[in-house]
């Protein structure tokens, strides 16, 4: 579809942080065939909104996130952040990966200090920022440890602190708790919400866990598999902290599961 988005700041007036307009993604397979990963997608995120994208693997949700981060190009449509198109990674957009992706040769402190360091901050400023955010995730005493000395949950906390130390206005999270055990996962979900209250951030969170989405999100984007397409966008009007025993919680989860299966 030759949908040509205007790159004038049409959405500058609204409180929209991120505007994904008419975005599609096609990959070339190793056999030279074109494979559509993502059908035309439109999505808008408002300031301080927590949006979860759920869908089966291969629905293009990670691709969408990587394009938003500027790690992958989008040939069709546009992704604009605060009114300017995203063409490469930028400091205001942070990202947390499933694989933690901490630098194994750097101490926890030096990992968290990466953002300020790349921005050219003085050593003292970098350390101060890193300490502040390490404290936020409750890992101050592990500042001098190395990533391999920490558990998976702690590593992911470090990765979150590292992303936040860059003071992003939009935080992208790609199945950040996917590799953690159920208990740690629930703990970190709770912690993430607490952090969001302290440091107001807009979050786009990709997961394949319906429960996780219902627990965290203000809005849930339900996607269909191959080629990925937005099936439905649902608002979650349950107050925080949400109780998994709540009847509305269960009903919503059930509803999303049915959507995914249909």
């Amino acid at each position, binding site marked *: 579809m030759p949908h040509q988005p205007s790159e004038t700041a049409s959405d500058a007036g609204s409180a929209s942080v991120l505007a994904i307009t008419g975005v599609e993604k096609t990959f070339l397979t190793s056999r030279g065939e074109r494979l559509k990963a993502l059908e035309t997608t439109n999505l808008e995120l408002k300031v301080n909104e927590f949006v979860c994208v759920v869908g089966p693997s291969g629905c293009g949700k990670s691709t969408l996130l990587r394009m938003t*981060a*500027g*790690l992958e190009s989008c040939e069709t449509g546009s992704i604009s952040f605060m009114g300017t198109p995203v063409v490469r*990674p*930028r*400091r205001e*957009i*942070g*990202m947390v*990966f499933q*694989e933690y*992706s901490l*630098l*194994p*040769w750097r101490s926890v402190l030096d990992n968290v200090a*990466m*953002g300020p360091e*790349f*921005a050219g901050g003085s050593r003292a400023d970098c350390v101060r920022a890193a300490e502040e955010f390490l404290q936020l995730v409750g890992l101050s005493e592990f500042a001098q440890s*190395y990533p*391999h*000395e920490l558990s998976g949950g702690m590593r992911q906390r470090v*990765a979150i602190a*590292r*992303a936040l130390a*860059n003071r992003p206005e939009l935080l992208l999270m790609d199945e950040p708790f996917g590799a953690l055990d159920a208990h740690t996962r629930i703990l970190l979900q709770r912690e993430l919400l607490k952090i969001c209250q302290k440091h107001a951030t807009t979050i786009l969170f990709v997961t394949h866990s319906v429960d996780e989405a219902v627990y965290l999100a203000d809005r849930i984007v339900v996607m269909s598999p191959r080629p990925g397409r937005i099936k439905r966008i649902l608002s979650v009007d349950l107050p925080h902290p949400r109780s998994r025993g709540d009847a509305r919680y269960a009903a919503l989860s059930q509803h999303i599961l049915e959507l995914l299966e249909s």
Partner: protein
Amino acid sequence: MKSSVLSFFLPALVPAAVVGAWIYWAPVIDNELLLPSPSSVAAILVHPAEPLLAMGSVAVNMLMSFARVAVGFTVGTILGIVAGLVMGRFKLADRILGPFLELFRPIPSLAWVPLLLAWFGMASVAGLLGIDSGPVYPYLDNLKLSMLFILILGGFFPTFTGTYQGVRSVPRTLVESSRVLGASESDIFFKVLLPGSAPGIFNGIRIGITLDWCHLVAAEMLPGASSGMGYLIFDAQMLGRMDIVIAGMILIGATGALLDYGCRVFERKKLGWSREVR
């Protein structure tokens, strides 16, 4: 505790047996040209500064060889690291230079000697710098360009391969997460790829330095050399001094093993993280 004492001495067992056999057989054979007595070899080793006939002392020759390897290997290693980083990072550079470099890898460095002698002859670093006297002159004059070329080549390939594979083994998400955090291309290079490939680089250096040491000794046996451990051995053979030959071999072996050991210690201390990852 007993077993730990035993395991400490275990590596010394075989060398001790070899020396024992040597001590036993030397007087039986009683021919200095076939098997010199351990005591004559030991005498050379404990007085390294004593001049040996026209060859100079063991210490001077050792120093000469060492200086050559230090200069040649350092240059080769630096070139190897740079090429490995660039070709590991940029596909285009890899496509252009990869096949070319692979053509040279299988060529033994000694096969270069005839060509190098024709090109450089006896030219040395001293001539290159225009120095023809002074205290450093003998050292610079012994850094023959042809020999350096061989050492650079010998140091280049192992380090290049180690670096190249090291860069390739840095997980993509490390690069991507750094880019998202605002890393510039030079940050990626120096703060992610370089430290990330350090274990690979170091592995290459460890293999390369012992290999280069071997190459050097072989190169010093060729025409044109007038000092160094290889020259010492070669010349001693001409003079029928098998005790000097064996003393030289022992020193070459010990130096190589020591270099390797030094590398291992450094690796354990500075690159311990790489063994803990996954």
